[in-house]
């Protein structure tokens, strides 16, 4: 949450000669960050980043208080001047005070409730200073009474509300939890249907306030208002938060209540409101003060009300800071920040000021306070020492090297969103109920966690197909598969697509990859239909019997969907499984001393006879003399007959003790030929 602070307003409470820019620097280095410093004609605006632990920074006075501590420590001349009227005595100005009957049904909803009625109010526009300040802070001025509530919220960080006293029937308010489906028309004219557990105020069987978020229209201040209820509370932040989430409706007030406010400062905020109402609206106090403080409530009021002492050993402080600072110095810093800090045996015992109680619980919280004011820039800088843990890295470290290899093989890496649309999910043939679906998607384009990378890659080809005709892309990313009751399966996948390419081109590429990764793969025909691949033009690859991926021609259903011309050769490989499989261990074999005999065998086979099986047969019958088998030519031709193909094998015959004799070679060759003829009904070509 960011707030805008006009520096002239800040200077009303922080008296110092330090220039705005310098001040912003001091604050950013030791306190809240000043994200931007906007120069206007007659003003400088600080844009302050308010972190969720420092609700006290969502106020101009709070910022002045913080700046005052920082400047004092840095030796700058400065003084904190609190707003007027904080300690105004709230007693009726008239002899017969007006009644206000308040019932709080569930005490945990509202740890502290204050209200007072003022009379004789003249509704008009606020003085220029107030109007200007509101406007510079990004809030529209409305009338003097409504402006007071906004002004107090900005000044003290305490949201407040105002009712027209005469619109509260029978002067009775019941603060309670809403029932599901109850309705209230809020000040912005919207009718809001409430969930359960919102905090509301009921008056005469109607709702007049959606507490902590926005008031009801039926009780709002109008030009004719004469008597006003000034209303300052703190609410259970969880109820406020849940309500704003369910209604998707968050106001400036709600943002502050969700974080919690300074419970001790509530009467002061009310007093300040009364002071301003008297000053700019001619108001007179017309009721007794209502102040219901639920100190007894253990769950909510605890942190706020109990003065909790936190202890910090100086040794721990110094081990965090890496230097030795004196305990008195640390104590001084805490005191400057409004803590009450005392020293006891090299330990600091500190009690946080009321505006910091929810943020200060452990010794490390005190360390942060001391360290930031002392100045992080004053601490030395050193490299980690100690033992470097000896642990293996994850598969990701291998991916870095793999990606480089892919680049050198000519592939371009893409990165696509892992969240896909229903349309893409449909292409993967995953049923919606089996997919990982987002409960709160941002748009319909991003609804499901993808079970495959391929559809996203096809999408990239589609987008680029008019720019190039030989795109080769890849991606390495996790896919997400649903598992019953467990964490989704999140294996690392590698996928690639070659535009206008063939099965053999991508197969050769995958063979290269396996050689780079020192893995041995088995190629088999795809057995079942696959939504992503053409069944008859795709191989499934296994390593040690486990399937690790598919390589082939992308199913035309998918490429047609994207209106892609030409054939897409693609693959998807499970890297988690691949990296888990053992690497081939390359051991040294003696370099042959005697030259080999190299001969070719050509034969005609049925065109569907798998070359892999032919080689396996040759290997079996040629062993041990045949050391190497290469396929050097495969072709089909009318001359050799339809449904036939010619395959030429180059065989290397070699022995370690001498050159093989022609007789030996002939014997083995004949054995191989016979085998091929028998197994494949091959016709050996002479």
């Amino acid at each position, binding site marked *: 949450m960011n707030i805008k602070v006009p520096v002239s307003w800040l200077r009303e409470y922080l008296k110092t000669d330090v220039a705005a820019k310098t001040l912003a620097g001091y604050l950013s280095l030791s306190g809240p960050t000043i994200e931007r410093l906007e120069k206007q004609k007659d003003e400088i605006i600080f844009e302050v980043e308010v972190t969720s632990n420092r609700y006290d920074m969502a106020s101009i006075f709070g910022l002045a208080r913080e700046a005052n501590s920082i400047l004092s420590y840095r030796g700058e001349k400065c003084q904190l001047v609190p707003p007027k009227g904080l300690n105004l005595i709230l007693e009726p100005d008239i002899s017969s005070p007006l009644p206000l009957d308040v019932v709080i049904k569930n005490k945990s909803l509202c740890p502290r409730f204050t209200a007072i009625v003022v009379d004789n109010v003249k509704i008009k526009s606020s003085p220029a200073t107030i109007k200007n300040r509101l406007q510079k802070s990004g809030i529209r001025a409305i009338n003097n009474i409504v402006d007071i509530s906004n002004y107090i919220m900005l000044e003290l960080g305490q949201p407040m509300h105002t009712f027209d006293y005469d619109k509260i029937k029978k002067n009775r308010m019941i603060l309670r939890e809403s029932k599901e489906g109850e309705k209230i028309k809020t000040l912005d004219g919207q009718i809001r249907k409430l969930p359960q557990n919102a905090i509301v105020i009921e008056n005469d069987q109607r709702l007049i306030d959606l507490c902590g978020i926005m008031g009801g229209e039926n009780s709002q201040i109008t030009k004719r208002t004469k008597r006003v209820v000034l209303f300052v509370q703190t609410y259970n932040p969880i109820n406020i938060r849940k309500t704003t989430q369910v209604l998707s409706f968050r106001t400036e007030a709600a943002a502050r209540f969700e974080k919690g406010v300074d419970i001790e400062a509530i009467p002061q905020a009310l007093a300040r409101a009364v002071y301003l109402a008297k000053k700019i609206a001619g108001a007179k106090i017309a009721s007794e003060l209502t102040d219901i403080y639920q100190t007894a409530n253990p769950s909510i009021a605890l942190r706020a009300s109990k003065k909790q002492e936190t202890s910090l050993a100086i040794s721990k402080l110094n081990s965090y800071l890496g230097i030795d600072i004196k305990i008195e110095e640390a104590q001084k810093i805490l005191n400057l920040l409004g803590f009450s800090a005392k020293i006891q045996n090299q330990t600091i015992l500190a009690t946080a000021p009321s505006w910091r109680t929810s943020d200060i619980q452990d010794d490390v919280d005190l360390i942060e306070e001391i*360290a930031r004011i002392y100045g*992080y820039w004053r601490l030395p800088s050193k490299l980690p020492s100690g033992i470097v*843990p000896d642990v293996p890295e994850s598969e990701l470290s291998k991916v870095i090297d793999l990606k480089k290899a892919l680049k050198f093989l000519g592939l371009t890496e893409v990165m696509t969103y892992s*969240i896909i649309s229903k349309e893409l999910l449909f292409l993967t043939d995953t049923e919606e109920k089996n997919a990982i679906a*987002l409960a709160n998607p941002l748009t319909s384009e991003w609804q499901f966690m993808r079970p495959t990378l391929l559809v996203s890659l096809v999408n990239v080809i589609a*987008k*680029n197909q008019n720019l190039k005709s030989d795109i080769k892309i890849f991606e390495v990313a*996790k896919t997400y598969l649903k598992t019953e009751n467990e964490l989704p399966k999140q294996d690392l996948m590698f996928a690639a697509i070659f535009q206008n390419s063939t099965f053999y081109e991508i197969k050769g590429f995958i063979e290269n990859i396996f050689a780079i990764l020192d893995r041995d793969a088995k190629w088999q025909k795809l057995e079942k239909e696959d939504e992503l691949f053409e069944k008859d033009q795709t191989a499934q690859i296994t390593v040690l019997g486990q399937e690790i991926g598919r390589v082939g021609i992308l199913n035309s259903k998918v490429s047609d969907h994207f209106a892609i011309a030409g054939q897409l050769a693609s693959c998807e490989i499970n890297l988690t499984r691949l990296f888990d499989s053992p690497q081939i261990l390359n051991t040294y074999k003696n370099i042959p001393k005697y030259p080999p005999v190299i001969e070719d065998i050509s034969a005609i086979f049925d065109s569907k006879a798998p070359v892999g099986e032919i080689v396996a047969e040759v290997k079996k019958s040629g062993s041990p003399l045949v050391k190497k088998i290469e396929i050097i030519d495969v072709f089909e031709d009318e001359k050799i007959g339809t449904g036939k193909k010619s395959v030429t094998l180059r065989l290397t015959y070699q022995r370690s003790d001498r050159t093989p004799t022609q007789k030996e070679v002939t014997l083995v060759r004949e054995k191989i030929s016979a085998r091929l003829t028998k197994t494949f009904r091959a016709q050996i070509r002479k």
Partner: protein
Amino acid sequence: MDQNIRKTFDSTKAKVTSVKVLKDLQQVYIETFGKGGQFTKLTKEISKLPKRDRPRFGKLINVAKKNLETEFARKRSELKKEKSQGYIDVTAPGKKRALGHLHLVSQAIEEIVYIFRQLGFHLQSYPEIDWDWYVFESLNMPKNHPARDDWETFFVKSSLKPKLGSLVLTPHTSNGQIREMERLKHPPIRMLNVARCYRRQIDISHTPMFHQFEGLLIDKNVSIPTLKGTFDYFTTRFFGPQRITRLRPHHFRFTEPSFEVDVTCSICSGRGCRLCKDGWLELGGAGMVHPKVLKNGKIDPSVYSGFAFGWGVERTIAMKTDVNDIRLLYQNDIRFLEQF
């Protein structure tokens, strides 16, 4: 004599065939036809033969000589051809291999990992869809805590598990913190975790998916100066020696104290310009691991302390290159990808 000629012929021819360079070919030529060369000797032998045999052997030698001369000439031109092509236009393009391109995010990750490895950090990988417990609860962010709002989280339709809660897309890599503590059980820990993260936002500097980078160091006597030193080491190596870092107080529930780490702006060198905050660019968040987080990871906070940091990889790319709209990184226009 017949045999002599054949033998000399064959051995010379074999030599010519096997010769690799011109100089050696010339040597063979001299050995064959030079003074005292083998054929010169053979020719001289003719005079020792009976007269009637002389013409026949003379012819034989001549045929062999002629044959060999042809061989020499052929080899000579062959060897010359291998070596020289005459004029070369050195400005004409060479024969290139097709190279691909790595995504900018991968390049940045590689560089980051390389730098932190030198400090003994190990790259690990943790789930990108994880239980609420690891993502929030164990990191000191109880349910309904307003700090959770900062993470703009995507939730997964899933059933609730006791303790672990529901499934979320990780909005940061910090889920790796507790998981690493559980995995190693005992410090020292020096972990890097790089993963895809997801948040419900998209604009010029945010994409719903991005990469985050997480470091975690747990040991005895880990101090804020160690964290500063680690960042200084990284910054000068990643961004260059002129760039420096600073820590700015901040708030994260899982670290205490917490900081944001800034690096001096490259555009204005720290003087302040419209692209930066007063001369500084925000790099990421960091802090000393909160004792409650250590406890949740079953590590004794009275013995060990640590620091953690995390930031968007895309942000560092924007800070280092001129990619001014982060969404470009995920549009996968080939004209963009091929620039890097």
